[in-house]
């Protein structure tokens, strides 16, 4: 089946440009871009002058299978992803039990293939039970399809264990993703130390804890030569260390969650637990510094850090409440804030949301070129709406954007040339 998109603005993150024209899809792959004459017999989709971009590749989505399917299943997460323009979910292993054996990974892959309308690429735990003591069967897990290895927000405190896991992973060419954080300094913290945490009387962690964690990890990468990705860099203080490590030629990349790019510590206001994240939201200076680091390419990847939590785990005093926010469906409109605030343009944003994560994990997605998979999102970057969390497709509705005015609507989402979402 051949499909032709006509009258579109095509975002090409690789070339860093926007082309006006058409795009043809055949056999689930992109046939050509630019030419706006539909081939004979092709179904034509009129994009009405809106933007067509590679689908978002979201690195670090939590789907709560196995263990807590009431919070999020592959079906609900997949539908949320499709509605948010996310065509590839790279899922986290911080489930209960953790995804730390080939058997669990196979279960997850099967569930994902049955239920999710978008591509699912699973990650596996770096250590058994994410406990930081013994490494998992990295080789078997890679054979079973694990794209990367991470203990998520658990820091492997034992540097010997972490160093060995990195060395072993390097021998297999596996990517290790870690959470840069000094675990003892940040223990028990619910906020970032500063004026706001002082007023609210919340236990807080210095932003320096992130740099300390990153510095340690950088030293270990230098020692082992492993392929490393820092899941979230959220403070200005960590950026020079990251820049130096890259300049020294280490195989290191870094990401940041969309919430840390669009919200700051003050948004917590009267102890709103939907704004409790891990790491906690930072000051405005940090947010701006990190946003500009994404624009400059120092931080490579933006992700949604989709973390479903049910009402019970959020309706608690702030210190006790669970961390995390859902982000799949609000990812694109939230990211549009960065474009509308002129921090970065659309191709730069797509480089961070789609091209870079795909490249880092060795996936063919994230590109707008002939031969690439036809995973596409058609969207209007300006359409305004008021976010209503009850409209979310996720099983958990813990979005911090509830009631906020946003801009940017996904019109259609395609995975391998098939329409998986269409806005009414």
């Amino acid at each position, binding site marked *: 089946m051949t499909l032709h998109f006509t009258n579109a603005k095509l975002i090409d993150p690789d070339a860093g440009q926007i082309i006006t024209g058409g795009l043809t899809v055949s056999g689930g792959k992109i046939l050509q871009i630019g030419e706006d004459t539909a081939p004979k017999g092709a179904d034509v989709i009129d994009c009405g002058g809106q933007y067509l971009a590679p689908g978002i590749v979201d690195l670090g989505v939590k789907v709560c299978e196995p263990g807590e399917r009431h919070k999020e299943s592959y079906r609900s997460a997949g539908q949320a992803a499709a509605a948010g323009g996310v065509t590839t979910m790279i899922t986290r292993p911080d489930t209960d039990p953790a995804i730390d054996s080939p058997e669990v990974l196979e279960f997850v892959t099967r569930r994902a293939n049955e239920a999710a309308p978008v591509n699912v690429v699973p990650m596996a735990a770096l250590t058994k039970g994410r406990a930081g003591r013994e490494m998992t069967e990295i080789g078997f897990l890679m054979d079973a399809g694990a794209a990367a290895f991470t203990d998520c927000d658990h820091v492997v405190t034992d540097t010997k264990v972490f160093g060995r896991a990195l060395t072993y992973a390097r021998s297999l060419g596996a990517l290790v993703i870690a959470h840069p954080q000094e675990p003892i300094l940040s223990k028990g913290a619910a906020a970032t130390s*500063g004026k706001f945490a*002082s007023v*609210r009387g919340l236990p*807080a962690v210095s932003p320096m804890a992130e740099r300390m964690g990153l510095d340690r990890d950088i030293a270990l990468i230098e020692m082992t030569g492993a392929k490393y990705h820092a899941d979230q860099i959220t403070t200005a203080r960590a950026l020079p260390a990251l820049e130096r490590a890259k300049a020294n030629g280490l195989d290191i990349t870094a990401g940041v969650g969309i919430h840390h790019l669009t919200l700051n510590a003050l948004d917590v206001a*009267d*102890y709103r637990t939907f704004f409790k994240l891990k790491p906690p939201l930072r000051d405005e200076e940090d947010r701006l510094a990190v946003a500009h680091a994404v624009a400059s390419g120092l931080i490579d990847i933006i992700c949604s850090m989709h973390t479903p939590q049910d009402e019970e785990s959020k309706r608690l*005093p*702030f*210190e006790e409440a669970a961390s995390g926010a859902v982000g799949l469906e609000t990812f694109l409109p939230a990211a549009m804030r960065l474009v509308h605030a002129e921090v970065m343009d659309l191709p730069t944003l797509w480089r961070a949301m789609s091209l870079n994560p795909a490249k880092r994990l060795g996936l063919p997605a994230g590109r707008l070129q002939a031969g690439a998979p036809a995973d596409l999102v058609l969207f209007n970057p300006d359409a305004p709406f008021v976010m209503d969390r009850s409209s979310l497709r996720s099983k958990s509705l813990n979005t911090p954007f509830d009631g906020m005015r946003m801009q940017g609507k996904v019109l259609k989402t395609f995975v391998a040339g098939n329409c998986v979402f269409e806005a009414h």
Partner: protein
Amino acid sequence: MRQFAQEQGRRPSITLPRRAMPAYKAATLQKGLPMSFPHRHLLGIEPLSPPDITAILDRADFYADLNRQADKHNDVLAGMTQINMFFENSTRTQASFEIAGKRLGADVMNMAMQASSIKKGETLIDTALTLNAMHPDLLVVRHPQSGAVDLLAQKVNCAVLNAGDGRHEHPTQALLDALTIRRAKGRLHRLSIAICGDIAHSRVARSNIMLLGKMENRIRLIGPPTLMPSQIGEFGVEVFDDMAEGLKDVDVVMMLRLQKERMDGGFIPSEREYYHRYGLDAEKLAHAKPDAIVMHPGPMNRGVEIDGTLADDINRSVIQDQVEMGVAVRMAAMDLLAQNIRNARAA
């Protein structure tokens, strides 16, 4: 006068005569006509305006006088139910709220929450909803976590009074401190006030900084840097780590309890070094103004943050007056909130 009282073996009240109250205000107080207090709850000092604070203190002055009468009853809460929910140990605050409620004629019930349903795994919200279904009018809550009382107040439809939440706020303590200062100094503005000790873990300090700041006083915080909250300098206060320097020419010295139970460990080297450097004694107090008063929210650690003799010095210490004003301020706060409840029901 004071000397005479001492000779007579009676404890003198060191409170100075109050400013003459305007006649219209005195009339309002006596008749118990509603004064405007535009708040549903008393969750903290932060949302209060200076007129709100003055309204509570003026009302409390009336109750302070009433509390010295033989008949201490003014049954403005008659028929109302007050529940004291304490999720954290407290003797003094709970007793103060209980007496305040009883003197105003409310039906008062105390619940020691550590002992009850929390142990059975019930959440804070469910506990609140259960009690709410019993139609209390006033809920007095203390909780070990910051923000827990705000959360609870969102889920009930009675007036909630914060009796201390974590390290966040303790509004009635700040109000009773303010009343004590106003009665001792004759005013509550343009005073130089030092708050000394464990500021980081203290909700009393936070509420006091906010209240005294709103009333346009000069606030100095004194304590070891490990016990100072981060970026506290941005609150419009001066920060000192030396007692002699910090206490220079202040009108009021407010000591804080060294909250041993909140210490994760390692904030100060030892109690004796703390007492040597930060414990208030006559020598350190000599740096303050000659008529400076000494306050402490209690319970005191004698010989840790304050010298026992100084704490008992009736010429300097107003610690007992603070306890007395505590009952009056809580009566005033509950009275004002109850008036709002009654007005809302009448409307």
